[in-house]
Each structure stands twice: as C-alpha cells, then as structure tokens.
C-alpha cells in the first residue's frame, strides 16, 4: 500500500508544524485544502519521531529501531532522495542514521544540513559536519 501511495502521489493533509518543514525539504507546494503530495520523507519522519510505542516514555518498547528504518529505505529505494532523508535525520537528531547515509550516499554538502542541526540542537552532528566538510 505504501508503494502504491508513493507511486500515485496521493495527498497528505497537513496539520502539524513538522509537515511544513517537510514541505520545505521536499520543495513541494501546499494547496488550498492544506494538502501536499505524500513522499518518502513523510514516512521517514513518522518513523523517526515514533521510535517507541509511547513517545513520551524513554524506556518503552522500541517499534521502529534503526535497522527497521534502513530496511524500509532499502525497500522503497526507488523513491529515495538521499539529501531529503539526511535532512529529516538531522532534524530529528538521529546522528547514526545521518552519518550512515552521509557516508553511504556521498551526497554533496548543503548548508541546510548545518542549519537544521543547529536548529535541532544536534551539536554532535554540527561538529561532525564541520569536521568533515570544512574547507
């Protein structure tokens, strides 16, 4: 079903602040019904923000571990935009996932990586990006 939805670009109703940030990352448009086309980054964002069954507990059951996210991205590889996925990982302070896709995909540095990391207080990622891309 997810593949069908991504393929047919069905609409996503925007209600949360994070969805507007994702619209910016996707470079998409929002229509007069507050809707935009759903893309893989929307799924990634939901995966990383709902790592645990209860998002307000720190020791609750993990439903979406890192390897699950990696598997999911492999399954839907044809819809994957590496820079967009990395931005979502940075925004959600997922250092290991961001690092993995930064090195695996060899994407070119974008200033958004840096600003998103600072906005999210993800200083481990900030220092890594500075170390790796500073010239």
């Amino acid at each position, binding site marked *: *079903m997810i*593949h*069908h*939805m991504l393929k*047919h670009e069905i609409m*996503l*109703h925007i209600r949360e602040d994070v969805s507007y940030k994702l619209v910016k990352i996707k470079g998409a448009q929002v229509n007069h019904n507050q809707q935009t086309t759903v893309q893989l980054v*929307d*799924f990634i964002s939901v995966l990383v923000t709902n790592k645990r069954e209860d998002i307000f507990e720190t020791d609750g059951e993990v439903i979406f571990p890192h390897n699950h996210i990696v598997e*999911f991205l492999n399954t839907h590889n044809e819809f994957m935009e590496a820079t967009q996925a990395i931005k979502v990982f940075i925004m959600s302070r997922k250092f290991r996932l961001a690092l993995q896709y930064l090195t695996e995909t060899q994407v070119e540095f974008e200033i958004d990586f840096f600003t998103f990391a600072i906005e999210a207080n993800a200083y481990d990622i900030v220092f890594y990006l500075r170390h790796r891309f500073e010239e």
Partner: protein
Amino acid sequence: MTPMNDRIAEQTIEDHKYLLELVENRAAIAYFAVANRNQSLFNALKNYVKEEIKQQEEEDQGKDEAELKKAKKNNKANSKMEAIFKNIILDFDFMSIVMYPELKNRREFVHQAWLIAKKTENTELKIAISNDPYFYISRDDILVLLKTKDD
C-alpha cells in the same frame, strides 16, 4: 443497463443482506454508491441501517444493564468501526458528497471510508479508495501504515 431506482436498490440490499453482516462490506457499498453517484443505493443502505438501529434499540430495552455492559465489552473492537460507518452513512448528506466534491464533506467521507478499509485490511477497498481523487491521508494514517508494515 437498467438504471437503479429506489425499488431496485431496496431489493438489492434485501437480496444481499448476508453481505451486510460485515462492516467492511457496508462501507464498500456506501463508498461505491457515492463514487458511482448512485443515490438510490446510498439511501437504501441508509434506510437499512436506520431500521437496524431501531431494532437494536428495541432489543436493548428488554435487557438489563449488566447484560448490555457485557455485550458492549464483547463488541468493543468492532464498535469503533461501527461508529465510523454510522457516521459516514447517517451524518453525510448524499448531495453534499457528490454535488460539491470540492468541499470538505467528500474528502472527509472518503477518509472515513479509508479508516474502515484499513482497519479491516480489505485490499481491494483500500486500493479503490486510495485511487479516489479526493482521498487524503494524515500523519496518523502513515503511522498506522508503518505499524502494520503495509508496504
């Protein structure tokens, strides 16, 4: 093909009562009646549901409170879907769904039908609804799709 009038629609519902046991079938009939602009079928289903509710209320009057509570507890899993179905068949005006699909009602109708299709994992219905031009999902729906590994 003979166009469906109220009498034929009522007869169709009467002949297929065995299908109406399942909420997913009722939701499918309601959705396809709207998608095909079949007001007679939609109204026939609506009347059938109203009749069912009336009968249920009459039956419930005879039961005591403890019995009712027990029955409610047993039907808890289904009751949410039943509530959604009653909402789509009783609360939406047919004309507002098919004549003014640009407005909110059609989108909400399709989305609620999707909730039933997803909950019952009826693949054909899910595909049909997701191809509707007024279909949308939210982040909550994405979470459900991911949790159920509906790749």
